[in-house]
């Protein structure tokens, strides 16, 4: 199968997956107790008032009718308007995507070189003191949850030493990049560990493989053997993990956004689910589903290029 037809088939499958996700999300949110009117009325749940809010939001129409109407707008990229604020859903998505993508991009830019470097170093000195030290550090770091690391970093560097801003509250992320330092460290900590371990394992396997031995017998220089022959094969498994990490980052890492006050997609999701603001939740489901499908497709294609023997059947 050619790469092009494989891509086309995967894209079509992806479309079906996206539709399935948004349908599922719609009915799951519908199944949550309470609707947007109940959530908005809050601790003033006068039934007459809830009925009025419901009518004003159009929630008194049948579920399927509302879902169908939403689906009809989707091909024109019309995500509808927020039930609660009346503002277009697209506004929420755009305002949340900026911080989330910026953070994800910066994380990846740092993550990939650092973790490959760490993995390769450990593999080339397999069993050495350096390898054991790196292994100990990465395993230890990997076992610390994001929020715990965030709390410690904020307390030490943000509040006690006051070297870095403890939160991004009210800040323009691009005008004040200092606010991104602590969140980036937190986001990098675990992925660096997992990916560098995969690179190390892949590299160790590759260096011990028949084809590397053969390349050495042919008299190819050690540097070339390591980086042109062994490394690409060693990276293939890591690419899948980078894809999962990318997907995780693009979903808006809720804990990190909450602790550092970054108004990204995760924050929008938490707010809209609590408000039962279905159109906004739906818009987010589309964004998350599309990124998941796209990122995984891209990862498979990259892995295929790096190690053409690898299995890429969907």
């Amino acid at each position, binding site marked *: 199968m050619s790469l092009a037809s494989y891509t086309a088939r995967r894209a079509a499958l992806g479309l079906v997956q996206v539709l399935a996700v948004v349908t599922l999300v719609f009915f799951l949110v519908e199944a*949550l*107790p*309470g609707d947007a009117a*109940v*959530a*908005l*009325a*809050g*601790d*003033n*749940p*006068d*039934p*007459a*008032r*809830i009925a*009025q*809010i419901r*009518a*004003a939001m159009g929630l008194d129409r049948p579920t399927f009718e509302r879902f169908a109407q939403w689906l009809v707008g989707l091909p024109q990229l019309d995500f509808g308007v*927020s039930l*609660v*604020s*009346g*503002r277009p859903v697209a*506004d*929420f998505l755009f*305002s949340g995507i900026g911080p989330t993508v910026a953070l994800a991009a910066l994380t990846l830019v740092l993550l990939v070189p650092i973790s490959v470097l760490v993995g390769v170093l450990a593999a080339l000195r397999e069993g050495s003191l350096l390898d054991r030290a790196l292994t100990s550090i990465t395993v230890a770091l990997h076992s610390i949850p994001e*929020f715990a690391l965030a*709390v410690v970093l*904020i307390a030490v560097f*943000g*509040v006690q030493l*006051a070297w870095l*801003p*403890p*939160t991004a*509250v*009210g*800040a323009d992320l691009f005008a004040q990049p200092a606010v991104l330092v602590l969140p980036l460290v937190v986001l990098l900590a675990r992925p660096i560990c997992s990916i560098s371990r995969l690179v190390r394992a892949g590299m160790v396997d590759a260096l011990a493989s028949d084809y590397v031995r053969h390349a050495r017998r042919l008299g190819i220089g050690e540097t070339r053997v390591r980086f042109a022959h062994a490394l690409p094969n060693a990276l293939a498994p890591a690419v899948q993990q980078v894809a999962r990490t990318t997907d995780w980052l693009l979903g808006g890492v*809720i*804990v990190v956004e*909450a*602790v*550092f*006050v970054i*108004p990204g997609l995760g*924050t*929008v999701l*938490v*707010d*809209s689910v*609590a*408000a*039962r*603001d279905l159109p*906004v939740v739906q818009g987010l489901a589309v964004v998350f589903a599309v990124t998941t499908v796209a990122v995984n497709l891209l990862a498979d294609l990259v892995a295929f290029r790096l190690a053409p023997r690898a299995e890429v059947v969907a």
Partner: protein
Amino acid sequence: MSLNRRGFLGLTSGLAVVTLAGCGSGATSASSTPRTGGRLRAAFAGGGAKEVLDPHLANLFVEAARSKAMFDKLADLGNDVSPQPRLAEKWEPDADLTRWRISLRQATFHDGRPVRAQDVLASYARILDPNRAFRAKSSLALIDLANSRAVDDRTVEFALKRPFGEFPNALAAFGAYIVPEGADDFTKPVGSGAFSFVSFEPGRSVLLKRNPDYWEGAPLLDELEFVIANEESARTNALLGGQVEYAHDLTPTTARSNASGDRMTIHRSPNSAVQAFAMKVDRAPFDNRDLREAMFLLADRPQLVESVLAGSGQVGNDLFGKDYQHYAGDLPQRQRDLDKAKFLIRKAGAEGLTVKLDTSTAAAGMVEAATVFADQAKGSGLTIEVVQGNKDSYWADTLKNGSLSSFRSGAMPIETHVAQRLLSGSGTNVTKWARPEFDALYEKAVSTSDPAARTEAYREMQRVLHAEGGYLMWGFADWIVGAKPNVGGISTAPANTLDWARFDKVWLG
């Protein structure tokens, strides 16, 4: 740090937007003498999608504070939660309390237009629009708009559908702001308040600037910025890290651990939020008066205040609105009496009974209070089983279902509390208290122009509720905000009153 504790205070999540309570001295902070200038950044919890600048849609605390900065009501609540004139200079009812003449103060909107009687009528007409669901609607519903009129540019005459002596409470209702006639788009709001609009990024920040022509005198600050931080820990860290000068709604634990530091000053507003359990009196088992009294006697209130509120509060006496106008402070304080409670439980035939106590994280401390109370009931013969429900629909769920639930409310006039929750026709009557003779007492209180008769009617209502009502009101929580030590002029009036979260009297030292 966990997300399910994020506190949106909105109606939405039920966290007490409604109100907080109060007495409070209206007094203020340590920072020396008032100075002008500077930008104050204030961190509040927000609601993302829900945030709006339309003052009539205000729901969250941050929206209430922003509305207050940019707009005025005709009246607002003073430190004892009684109505005080604001845009209204004075109000005069006719003899039978059905027509009220309101004289407006000389004030201007930010665009230079004067505030006129027509703006008042248009604002109330917008709130009362039958096709919309603004929060202040139920409070203003007794106005007969068709028969109300603008006498001249600065005099409004309201016709009411029934005699109502507490009409100024309605003028002070949550969200009853005066907007310019015809205003419906609030992307660039124009009000008559102490600060005027500069910019808005939903879910992130709102920037306002000083209105030099404010009728009550220009604010001391040049600029006021509201920023959003949903997590209480983030608001605290932002304050400690110097990113904001004011952090709204902190926990008693934060207050305790930062009380002695030099980076943060803690400001407490006493009597801001009543903490209670609601028993439904129309169904078993709490249709039995003896069992209700047994519950009152089971509660160890000082222990609840100490453990649940970390000491940041006062014990309650099963009555709403401690120290507010009309509060019956002379009724004896109820104490725990386990022996009498056991006796009453046996008398009610409830020995061995297990009662479900519905609670949720919709408001801070409710689950903890339920757990502590269930523990206090051990050994009484009655078993209380704590059941945790969904926080987003909690208030609507417990209005209809169950027989015992956690309850919390912010400040509002005692009259409003009774009207919304304790009359046969009340929309949020969670205790299902419906008694014609009690309704008649309320009617008497609000329709008499004799102050002594009114006071007596309020006292009688509270006596009955104290003896056999459905609310076990065990405590009143302080409302806690943190500020940089150089911030002066922060009031400790109860949350939801005029001086709470009010920034035109605040300065940066």
